[in-house]
């Protein structure tokens, strides 16, 4: 078990955003987390990555309790993420964006940086090389020197993935990676997500509203609504689940259908 949420609660004032949600993600899975707007999906991501501390329950990563750890520590521990409302370092280049996430790979200290030692230069070179490989893998090699904020929307989303991969994560959380993409770009994204898992061995959890992407790429899906689990299972099971249909389409429709 790579990631395990154990009856996680998150409360904002009077709002019970997440209520006793338990999720198990196996190593090597492509896992979907879906639900209507405001269901608590992004809150769950923020709990996993340490942005929020859970008000109840635990988050286990590789069997270790990581609830309450700082975001930087969790990221260094092997969980990479992207953001729903793209958070790139906008005025830096694509390449620099990716290189920032390589902080841990960079062995040179402040003194050797200030003195520009050979060691620092080789660290820098290795980092640049790795960043270039990741940009190339996500089809952004030609934009390596472009300012991140000037890239088209779809490219920005892919750049966020490249940046998260620079952490060499075991687990990658993608928050609506297909948002704002046209159907052609979305299909490319599906290929890229499968490639992440197959070639890099990264376990992927994605939150997504584009159902064709979710159903095509995810092996298991977890559905939340109003902060609670309403279903989980394979795409076929989810598609047929009356509670899921009700949550998405409204009660009457579900009963009629």
């Amino acid at each position: 078990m790579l990631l395990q949420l154990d009856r996680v609660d998150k409360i904002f004032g009077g709002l019970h955003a997440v209520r006793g949600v338990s999720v198990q993600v196996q190593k090597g899975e492509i896992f979907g987390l879906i639900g209507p707007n405001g269901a608590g999906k992004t809150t769950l991501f923020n709990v996993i990555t340490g942005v929020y501390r859970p008000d109840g329950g635990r988050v286990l990563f590789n069997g270790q309790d990581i609830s309450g750890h700082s975001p930087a520590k969790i990221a260094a521990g092997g969980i990479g993420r992207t953001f729903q409302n793209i958070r790139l370092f906008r005025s830096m280049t694509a390449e620099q964006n990716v290189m920032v996430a390589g902080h841990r790979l960079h062995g040179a200290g402040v003194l050797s940086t200030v003195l520009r030692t050979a060691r620092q230069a080789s660290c820098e070179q290795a980092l640049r090389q790795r960043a270039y490989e990741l940009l190339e893998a996500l089809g952004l090699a030609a934009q390596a020197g472009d300012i991140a904020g000037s890239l088209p929307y779809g490219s920005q989303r892919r750049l966020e993935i490249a940046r998260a991969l620079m952490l060499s994560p075991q687990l990658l959380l993608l928050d609506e990676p297909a948002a704002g993409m046209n159907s052609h770009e979305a299909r490319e994204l599906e290929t890229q997500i499968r490639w992440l898992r197959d070639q890099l061995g990264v376990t992927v959890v994605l939150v997504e509203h584009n159902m064709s992407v979710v159903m095509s790429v995810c092996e298991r899906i977890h559905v939340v609504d109003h902060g609670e689990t309403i279903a989980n299972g394979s795409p076929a099971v989810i598609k047929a689940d009356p509670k899921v249909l009700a949550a998405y389409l409204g009660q009457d429709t579900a009963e009629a259908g």
Partner: protein
Amino acid sequence: MSPEAPAPAAPPPAAPPLGPAPRMPRWGLRVLGAIVLIVAIQLGRLGLEAALIEYAQRILLLAGINVILAVSLNLINGTTGQFSIGHAGFMAIGAYGAAFLGVHMAPALQVLFGPGMLSDAITFNLALILGALLAGLSGFCVGLPSLRLRGDYLAIVTLGFGEIIRIVFNNATFLGSATGYFGDSPAGLPTYTNLFWVYVWVAIVIVVIWNLTFSQTGRSLSAIREDEIAAEAMATPTTRLKVLAFSLSAAGAGIAGGLFAHMQSGIRPEDFKFDKSIDMIVMIIVGGLGSVSGAALGGIFVAVSLELMRDLHEYRLVLYALLLIVIMLVRPEGILGSRELPQLLASRFVRLGRGGQGGARGARS
């Protein structure tokens, strides 16, 4: 290895041409450092030979000190994006620290090395370094708790800190209180500061901050400025880096303070008032926030323009303010924007070479 069919099969070029960070080769930096050093030595020699009239010399000294202040402040305000307006406080700590320690170390060092140029140079530089350490240490102590604050809140804390320091010196009797500190001898503080040492320290500070800015550390600092939450999610130790930048920035101001203290016979608390901090902010904004060479240019600009307008007496500040307004209207991003001088020159050459295109876009950062 690309999942995309149309991905180019060409081998990765070593680096895209003209990325926004100026990738000066290592030898290039060393050559630049050497040139700066040689120029410094030459200037120092000229200064010693009194080839410059005292007035011009004073402007050059002030310009050098301003460059150190601006370049160090830019590390925290420009690169890291944390708005600090108490830099005069760190400068004061460096100034008083270096002056006091210099006065008290001098006798012992004179015994050790014999009176003369050598012991003066050792006393001076040791005092500067200790003053910078003191300033850096206080930067660390202020930064650790206050860098959790953002934007205006941090600005208020640093502003308060700067005032506290000034008031402490205003009341410290062993440092001369409001009258100022003039050392123990009736002649006042020894005037060790000359063009040579000022520009040696300018070179050291610029090289240190330049190397730091164009490295993984500098990229991480910029990432903190751009989006702290994303930087944290990318495993960047944000607090550690912010405190590091703040301490180094304070140490730089400390060196400038030490140089300033030994330029004249004494220092007074009112030399480090709030307007001094504002002057430094003006330098980095005029030069271009986030640009090391821009900050240096801004420092020179402020020193020279203020001195050239000295004859206008009380109208000086009016004209100065007007000048700033015009600059901000014409070039709101500052002289260099966030670009660097070497990169700007390089892109100019490329543009010429390619017949009027390219370069400019890639050079923006």
